[in-house]
């Protein structure tokens, strides 16, 4: 069990950065997910914590002690890869027991620890099988068992369920999270899948181009994304973003979407809030998640008429493309709420779920209505 601190960590490859000024604190027993697209530096960060990769500047501390001088094996950390890396000629039991035997633990201790891990992972019935006879999900369970059995200070996982099919991934997500709750090992988990990050993490650290974009709980990054990248990387369907502008009105703030494609009334206090941020009122990107676009079938105060374009029925709800002039915004509606493409419905943006970003920097203006 351990806390892990990354302080001003940098890593270059020639003239280009792989990791840039990374500061991140992973608390004792916390489950932190490093999330980002391929090439964002998340795996390099994980490997640097494990000691599989050197860093060029900065410090990595485990339990307050710098570990750069320590070999991977001496950091007391376990690593689980996407590919299982099990010994094919050994049974599941012997694969899990392997690190303990290497540490010359007594037969009794080995057996107890292997059985404990197997029970937690629900693979007791598979212990006599060899990897060749196991399914992908079970192989990954064995690999995790082998990592856990040493009771390492921290568990590092690199896309451990990325290679599994959708249904199994869903199952493993619940299991891994449950395992963490029971085991309480500090965990750093790397993925490019925002659903995995949202559903398992205590906190998510989102990276892009080697730069940490935001660290926060799933709710924080979903509801209050720090910038456009985070806003559109987290959540599915992705957040609608359109360029926009604000104007002071008589009793409201007028929010203009696109090039005068639609004008919506927002609370009057919005305009001074944007002015307070010393922000130019025309250089705005307006973001709203599909569930924040409110749709009515008949004329409703504060709503504007829009044409429904494509309707995607996803089962429990529909995603409907709505044409606000030339701007297409997607709305989440109850299943069958909008009958067909071409229908005119009435829509507005829920002010509490509307985000305002600077088009120049991409940063959120942090306006909360």
């Amino acid at each position, binding site marked *: 069990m351990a806390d892990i601190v990354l302080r001003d960590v940098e890593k270059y490859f020639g003239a280009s950065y792989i990791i840039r000024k990374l500061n991140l604190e992973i608390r004792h027993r916390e489950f932190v997910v490093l999330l980002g*697209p391929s090439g964002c530096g998340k795996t390099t960060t994980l490997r640097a914590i494990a000691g599989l990769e050197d860093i060029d500047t900065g410090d990595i501390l485990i339990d307050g002690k710098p570990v750069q001088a320590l070999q991977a094996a001496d950091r007391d950390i376990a690593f689980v890869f996407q590919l299982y890396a099990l010994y094919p000629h050994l049974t599941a039991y012997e694969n899990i027991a392997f690190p303990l035997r290497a540490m010359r633990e007594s037969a009794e201790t080995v057996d107890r620890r292997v059985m404990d891990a197997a029970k937690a992972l629900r693979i007791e019935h598979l212990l006599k099988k060899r990897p060749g006879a196991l399914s992908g999900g079970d192989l990954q369970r064995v690999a995790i068992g082998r990592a856990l059995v040493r009771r390492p200070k921290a568990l590092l996982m690199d896309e451990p369920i990325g290679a599994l*099919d*959708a*249904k199994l991934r*869903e199952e493993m*997500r*619940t299991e891994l*999270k*449950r395992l963490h*709750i029971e085991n309480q090992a500090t965990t750093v988990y790397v993925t*490019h*899948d*925002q*659903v995995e990050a*949202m*559903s*398992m993490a205590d906190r998510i650290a989102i990276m892009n181009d080697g730069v940490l974009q935001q660290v926060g709980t*799933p*709710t924080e990054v*979903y*509801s209050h994304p720090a910038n456009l990248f985070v806003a*559109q*990387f*987290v*959540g*599915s*369907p*992705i957040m609608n973003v359109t360029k926009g502008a604000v104007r002071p009105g008589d009793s409201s703030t007028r929010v203009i979407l696109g090039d005068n494609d639609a004008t919506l009334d927002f609370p009057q206090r919005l305009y001074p809030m944007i002015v307070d941020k010393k922000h130019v009122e025309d250089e705005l990107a307006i973001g709203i*998640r*599909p*569930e924040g676009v409110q749709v009515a079938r008949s004329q409703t105060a504060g709503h504007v008429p829009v044409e429904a*374009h*494509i309707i*995607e*029925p*996803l*089962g*429990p709800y529909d*995603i409907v*493309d709505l044409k606000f002039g030339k701007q297409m915004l997607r709305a*989440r509606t109850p*299943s*069958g709420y909008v009958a067909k*493409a071409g229908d005119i419905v009435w829509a507005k943006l829920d002010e509490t779920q509307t985000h305002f970003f600077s088009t120049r920097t991409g940063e959120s203006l942090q306006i909360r209505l």
Partner: protein
Amino acid sequence: MAHVRLDKISKKFGSHTALNNLDLDIADGEFFVLLGPTGAGKTTTLRLIAGLDSPNGGGISIDDQDVSGWSAAERDVALVFQYYSLYPHYTVRQNLEFPLKSKVRRMSQQDIDQRIAKASKTLRIEHLLERKTDRLSGGEMQRVSIGRAIVREPRVFLMDEPLSNLDAKLRELLRSELKDLQMKLGATFLYVTHDQVEAMSMGDQIGVLNHGRIIQVGTPQQIYNQPHDVFVATFVGSPAMNLLPTRLDRGWAEVVPGKLEFSVDKAAGGRAAQLAGPVTLGIRSEDVMVGMNEAVEARVHGVENLGVEKVVTLRVGDCLIKATVPARLELSIDSAVRFSFKQEKLHFFDSGSGNNLYYGEEKRNG
């Protein structure tokens, strides 16, 4: 534009039966999605329609003409693959011209230019026409691949997982674009995928394929709300439908004895009350109601925050049940909660065959 029919198609590879008595009817101008896991026979079906392979039995017709003896070129269908298969050293324009310059077509350069202009406008790749294809992004390459199919103005578009190599955001964008394109062209699309979200969001009709057999054909709503068996029920929808081994007797369902038992008098239009014996009960996560006044007590086993909502795993005895709850609901692990099932949303499957006891009739009779 064409109506495609497969009649009792079989295809074997050695001793392996890839397709077994497959019937498929794709209406003119329809967006038909063939959905199934790896190895179900989706790509085989596509290749048979394209004329790249021949079936061991059965007939294929396009617009009521038997095309079994026709070559791939004569069938006038266009294939778009997962991998872009563009010529890397040529420009986008040259790639688009290529299928039109075949000697069979003898098109004038003017006609060719016109078709390319039209297709590139539809796909919004006009600005890329003079660029070499190895300098395009994944999404642009896939648009060009689709463009190369469009310029031919084929009778049928066949698409084999065209979006599966792209990242999530681009896939979402191209889903809408493809659906929009098909509506604009009014063309017949046969689209193959293992991704149920793609199938649900684009298909007019979905055919669910497993082990070389069509399990069910229907609109996305039919497939989602009236699955014919446990395979369809769990393959479509996320999270997967909860399946609970249950004992039924005189309108009473016993899932976990003494802990999860309830009346099913009103389920399945009252018909469930007549069932007796072991069944598999199915309920989707959004039809599990969580609240202080619900009937059954459970423990919170896990919580997944998806932003827009949360999926909570409930534990009753050894039984795990997923429920969708509003994102603002705070639930701590291992705390007590109460829940119940929406009676009218319960599904009953045969515990042996997995067939839906109320929606599967037509399949078994047919």
